[in-house]
């Protein structure tokens, strides 16, 4: 039987730049194929070619028996495509969006009614049909996008990074929906930068810089790393120091913080001795763990970064009195109301000096609102937000001088050059004269920005954009750093680099407040506040939270499972006790 998609010698060039090097591949029906790779690898380009929106520069592609160039129209009728940037009309309601796509796909009569009913049930969007698409949360938008793409009962479904910016609960739902679809015989291609998702696919195509690194079941790649993954748990030392030391070891290929410990991947079995020694020195126990797809990915792509952060080394330790005390960030009965709607209610917590504090929750839970109030982007309706002991409302400038901020979209000035961006941010934070010049040169050197100084930040590769954004936010050596989904949609290697820097800074005394949907990042935190429905429902270290979510069937839950379990528990509690009188 012919495969759903047959690719022969496909190559794609944009001008001089090769986006895809010639390769062959097939995509089968009834299977969930993951398309994985770092940013710029060529995933979107490949999907667009499969959707017959772009023509190959060389080779041929047949989708459902049709050639993508000659029979593009047939492909448009039979393939469902969900582009990366939604493709929803924000000023139309859910129902209006659905109706548009249904009519564009020629559904009518009974078929139309049945399809609508099914899709609305499937996506659980039935109660929201009247809401404008622009007002939906991230997760709901993706579900709507999926529903629109499914409208014509396609035989092939192409999803371009559908889970970016979506909270774990919604992500699970998306998975559930897609798995149902493949059970029904649909071929689904799911492109992602999240490797835990790749692991759950039946087949994975791994792309890097336009080349196929792997095409087959994820296990095939993962199994090659058998016996090379270890966990060092419960060290006496600070786990970040442990990680830094571990990464500097010769035999260690990759390492991340996990709970109260470190997870390492070795170059090969032999190097275990050095690790054992390190663990002994730190008072940690060594456990062998099964390899993950992510380990294989990093290994395949050349290994993770080293442990040293040049910027952190350059930085002087944060002065003890920089924060006017021990509390870096304080939320005191913070409440925000937008008209009738309460976005955050009586949020109350403290972030201590030198801590990495995570703020987690589903979309619409109130964490972005809380985060914005704490860095001065929103004014609270009541309550206080303090940074370094200074009230953001009354001592605004002074407080803001103590904080650094890095946003998901990087907020760099595309019309200025890289150097001009650095000069701007240093000026805005009050650096002058010689000090300013030295600081800028420092940043250029430590982040390796020399070759890009004259270019616009828009043209930088993602990793460098991130470095530049970090450099700009650190220009004034703030004792407190606010990170708003800093690694959303970013590939694992760039993400690790980022956290190497952050960890280095934390070891010098910087306090970090981070929000994220990526649960692995929650592991890097010392404490995590979990919010739902405008309230903080849990606040503890990641390991403690995992313990609370553990069940006999699942004694060692991942952070993602913990999150989902605790949210659901919170929901049940809220139903039993709507006024929230229980603590």
């Amino acid at each position: 039987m012919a495969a759903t998609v047959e690719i022969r010698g496909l190559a794609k060039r944009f001008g001089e730049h090769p986006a895809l090097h010639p390769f062959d591949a097939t995509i089968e029906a009834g299977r969930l194929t993951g398309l994985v790779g770092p940013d710029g690898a060529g995933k979107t380009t490949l999907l667009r070619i499969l959707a017959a929106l772009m023509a190959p520069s060389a080779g041929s592609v047949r989708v459902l028996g049709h050639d993508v160039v000659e029979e593009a129209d047939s492909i448009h009728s039979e393939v469902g495509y969900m582009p990366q940037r939604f493709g929803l009309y924000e000023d139309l309601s859910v129902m209006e969006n659905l109706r548009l796509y249904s009519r564009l796909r020629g559904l009518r009569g009974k078929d139309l009614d049945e399809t609508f009913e099914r899709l609305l049930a499937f996506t659980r969007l039935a109660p929201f049909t009247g809401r404008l698409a622009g007002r939906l949360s991230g997760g709901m938008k993706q579900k709507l996008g999926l529903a629109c793409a499914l409208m014509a009962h396609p035989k092939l479904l192409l999803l371009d990074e559908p889970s970016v910016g979506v909270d774990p609960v919604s992500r699970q739902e998306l998975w559930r929906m897609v798995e149902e679809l493949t059970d029904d015989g649909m071929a689904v291609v799911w492109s992602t930068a999240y490797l835990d998702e790749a692991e759950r696919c039946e087949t994975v195509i791994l792309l890097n810089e336009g080349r196929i690194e792997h095409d087959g079941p994820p296990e095939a790649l993962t199994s090659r790393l058998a016996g090379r993954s270890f966990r060092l748990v419960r060290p006496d030392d600070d786990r970040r120091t442990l990680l830094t030391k571990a990464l500097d070891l010769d035999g260690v290929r990759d390492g991340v913080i996990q709970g109260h410990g470190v997870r390492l991947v070795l170059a090969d079995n032999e190097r275990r001795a050095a690790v054992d020694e390190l663990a002994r020195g730190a008072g940690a126990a060594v456990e062998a763990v099964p390899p993950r797809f992510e380990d294989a990915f990093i290994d395949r792509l050349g290994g993770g970064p080293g442990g040293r952060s040049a910027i952190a080394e350059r930085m002087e330790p944060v002065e003890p009195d920089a924060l006017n005390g021990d509390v870096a960030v304080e939320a005191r009965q913070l409440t925000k109301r937008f008209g009738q709607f309460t976005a955050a209610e009586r949020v109350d917590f403290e972030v201590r000096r030198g801590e990495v504090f995570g703020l987690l929750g589903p979309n619409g839970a109130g964490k972005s609102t809380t985060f914005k109030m704490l860095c001065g982007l929103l004014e609270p309706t009541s309550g206080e937000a303090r940074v370094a002991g200074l009230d953001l409302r009354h001592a605004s400038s002074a407080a803001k001088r103590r904080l650094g901020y890095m946003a998901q979209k990087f907020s760099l000035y595309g019309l200025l050059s890289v150097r001009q961006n650095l000069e701007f941010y240093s000026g805005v934070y009050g650096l002058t004269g010689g000090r300013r010049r030295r600081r800028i040169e420092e940043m250029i050197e430590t982040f390796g920005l020399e070759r890009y100084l004259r270019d616009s930040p828009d043209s930088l590769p993602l990793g460098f954009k991130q470095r530049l954004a970090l450099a700009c936010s650190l220009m004034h050596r703030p004792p407190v750093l606010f990170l708003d989904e800093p690694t959303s949609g970013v590939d694992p290697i760039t993400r690790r680099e980022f956290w190497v820097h952050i960890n280095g800074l934390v070891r010098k005394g910087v306090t970090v407040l981070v929000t994220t949907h990526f649960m692995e990042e929650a592991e890097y935190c010392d404490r995590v506040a979990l919010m739902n429905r405008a309230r903080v429902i849990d606040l503890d270290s990641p390991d403690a939270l995992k313990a609370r979510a553990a069940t006999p069937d699942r004694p060692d839950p991942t952070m993602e499972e913990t999150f989902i379990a605790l949210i659901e528990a919170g929901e049940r509690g809220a139903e039993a006790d709507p006024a929230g009188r229980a603590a």
Partner: protein
Amino acid sequence: MRARRLLALVAKESVQVVRDPSAILIAFVLPTILLFLFAYAVSLDIRNVRLGVVLENDGPAARDLAADFAATRYFEVLPVRHRREVGDMVVSGLLRGVVVIPQDFDRRLATGSRPAIQILTDGSQPNTASFVSGYAEGVVASWLDRRSGLAGTGAASGPAVVLEPRFWFNPEVESRRFLVPGSIAIIMTTIGTLLTALVVSREWERGTMEALFSTPAGIVEILLGKLLPYFALGLLATLGCGLLATTVFDVPLRGSWGALLALSASFLIPALGQGLLISALARNQFVAAQVAVFSGFLPAFLLSGFLFEIDSMPPVIRAVTYVIPARYFVTGLQTVFAAGDVWSLLVPSMLAMLAIGSVFFAITARKTRKSLDR
């Protein structure tokens, strides 16, 4: 099958238009303001021109002449005693013109030699200056004529060419009668070209084009689906302007509403085509806006003949106006309102506009394919 898709796209776009405040602003609020201004503010009808009359002597003839000036309905006369006072007043704009009746006026008149009358104008406002000098000359001439009748030797008023002017289509001679219809062209350009250019390039910027391309909808359906609501909006606006003009602004429509709408429809074709072409090339809102203003709005305002006469422009520019659709629309509008259904003028105008429109669409068709390859 295709009609259904087109209808769906038109429905979607119409909902978006209705929910977009800037579209409502451009299609209804701005036209009302503009019409109002063209009816009252932009007036080429001279009135209240401040004229200084320097009476250097007090003789009866001089005073009689001065009185004639004061009696006209166009001048607001300021009597001045000495010539040297007026200089500053003209410089600072207090006076737009000066008539100097010299000291020896009466004497010269009596002796039969020709007295000299000076008419000075503020040349920095050429239109007013030309009016002042021309009209003042006329006042003097008719004063002389009357005087000759009085002194008359029986030759009655003598041989004279007497011009009897008749202003067809605009007997009241109000500039409003041609400015208001012409301004409809400006409004249609704003809706048809500027708004469309912005809206389509916004769709490119937001990425929804990509999603549409992946459906069976053809490129023609997608583009038509975007344009048809604006076409309807334009016609609605025409109707609205026409109603405002006839009921509120006292500008009668001598032709038929059908002709007015047909004209408007013919203009909307090139206007929308231009907007579409701009957005296809620009794909970016800021650039699209600039190009739309520069190549659509300003020509409609300055080169269409609605305010500034095309015949008076230098030949090169006159040639350029032949490819500006607004030019034909303005002539058509002024005719349909003031003259009536002069088909011998309306039909060629409509054909010209349709021809230009088809060129725009042809170019756009070449430039837009259902592909993300640039």
